[in-house]
């Protein structure tokens, strides 16, 4: 129990440290182009709702889709790169998540729809590390849970007839047998 206290204290410290780092590293400019000139030139990304973000090249490197686009265009980075499939909210969350060192607890504070948006964006931007972490978090949520729980969790409607569902359970009896879920 003491351990739990320690880890939340160190998490808070870590959080405070990172907030400080955030203000230095995370540069977002909303609604207008910036005149700031940094040593390593930031890359401009324009989200689907027309907001321009300036993102560090090291972060853009993780977005393989964008990185490939830049390299294919002779490293031309003066024009903002459009992200038609990513909203400003989502991009902001991704950058925040990254700045917090991919802290899983952060994801747990978000709603399920927002998490799905993150996955969609991570898939579109081809950010493997982010995708791996997000899919792991979701898998952890549904591990050892019943079919009913999975349906409720994802808001899925059961479109099987009782006979159809019984047939699937019967054919895969070996998987259903003795499965004790903890929900």
């Amino acid at each position, binding site marked *: 129990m003491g351990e739990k206290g320690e880890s939340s204290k160190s998490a808070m410290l870590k959080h405070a440290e990172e907030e400080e780092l955030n203000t230095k590293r995370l540069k977002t400019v909303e609604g207008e182009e910036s005149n700031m000139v940094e040593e390593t030139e930031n890359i401009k990304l324009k989200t689907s709702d027309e907001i321009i973000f300036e993102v560090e090249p090291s972060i853009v490197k993780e977005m393989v889709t964008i990185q490939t686009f830049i390299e294919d265009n002779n490293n031309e980075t003066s024009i903002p790169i459009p992200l038609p499939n990513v909203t400003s909210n989502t991009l902001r969350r991704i950058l925040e998540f990254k700045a917090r060192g991919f802290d899983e607890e952060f994801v747990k504070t978000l709603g*399920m*729809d927002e998490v*799905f948006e993150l*996955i*969609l964006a991570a*898939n579109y931007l081809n950010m493997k590390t982010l*995708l*791996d972490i997000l*899919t*792991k978090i*979701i*898998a952890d949520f*549904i*591990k*050892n849970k019943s*079919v009913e729980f*999975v*349906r409720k969790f*994802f*808001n*899925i*409607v*059961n*479109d*099987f007839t009782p006979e159809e*569902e019984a047939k*699937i*359970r*019967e*054919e*895969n*009896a*070996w*998987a*259903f*047998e*003795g*499965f004790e879920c903890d929900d």
Partner: protein
Amino acid sequence: MEEEAGIYRLAEDSLRQIFCRLPLREIMICRSVSKFFLQLLSTPSFLQVLSSSHPPLQLLALRNRHHTPSHTSLPLFDPATKSWLHFPLDFLPFHSPLPVASSLGLLYLWAHNNSNSNSKSLICCNPLTRTFRVLPHLGSAWSRHGSVLVDSEDRVMVLTELAALYCHRNTSTWLKFSSNLPSKPRSSLLINDSAFALCDVGSPWRSQWKLFSCTIKSTTTSVVPVWSPLDRHEWGDVFDVLNRPRLVRGGHGNFILMVGGLKSSFALNAPCSTILVLRLDLDNLRWDEAARMPPEMFRAFRESTKFKVFGGAGDMVCFSAKRIGKLALWDRRASEGHEWRWIDNLPENGKGLYRGFVFEGRLNAVP
């Protein structure tokens, strides 16, 4: 209008990535969530991905005289969860299925063509995916007297003392050849394209075991396979140190395990001090010791004059003797110190002698 669940908007690849992280059984269970999931979690390419990310289920097919398995479902024991899993066999249009062997996720069984006839077919199936294939026709004498040996790439041999049948992949007929063995083959195994067996070449008073092998180079009748003794001078008296040696397939790779009671002396009927598992590396033909049964376990076997041993894939060997009420299991891949354990969740308290084999449940095995 009802809004579609958010999860359906995710790319199928992302969805599969989520479910791939679950244990195999939970993935199967999630097939019943909705029609979309049934489809998503059943595609051949998904099953292929699963098979590389998840180790196969290591299950034991057990049977004994007291416990006749049902004719419609196959009970397999999962030592990991100490529970029985039941695999329905109703997808087979045959009667009275009798499983006899397995290799790489495929189960081989004899079954009656219909309830009235005595004619049997040899069938290859995957009970997880409920698919099957009937092997080329063979006469009923083979089902009565033949041992079915199987290995990877659908190699099948049916062996008797006098003759053998062999087929490989999808050949439509069997290659038949005479066995030139000196006596009845025991513990025969098929590893790749070579068959192995122990024969007793001694006298009625004293057994003398010898290892024989036979390589099937081609399935055409022009090259007749021949059995010959497999021996090396440096092996010394490796076959004499064990009482009633039996062969068991040695996990993945080119190994044979030989199991028997370790005789305390070379005298006739010398008592055994433990049960020994030796391993033969077929690449360099060298023997070494793989394991020996711990004394506390052997105590239960000491009273029995004989025990049954079986195994198969994954370096698992099972030991059964009458009146013990449980099976001893040696699992080479278990964590250190836990290689030997008891299996005691058996029906009717494990009365009698069990025989069987190890079955690996694999979703990507295609009959």
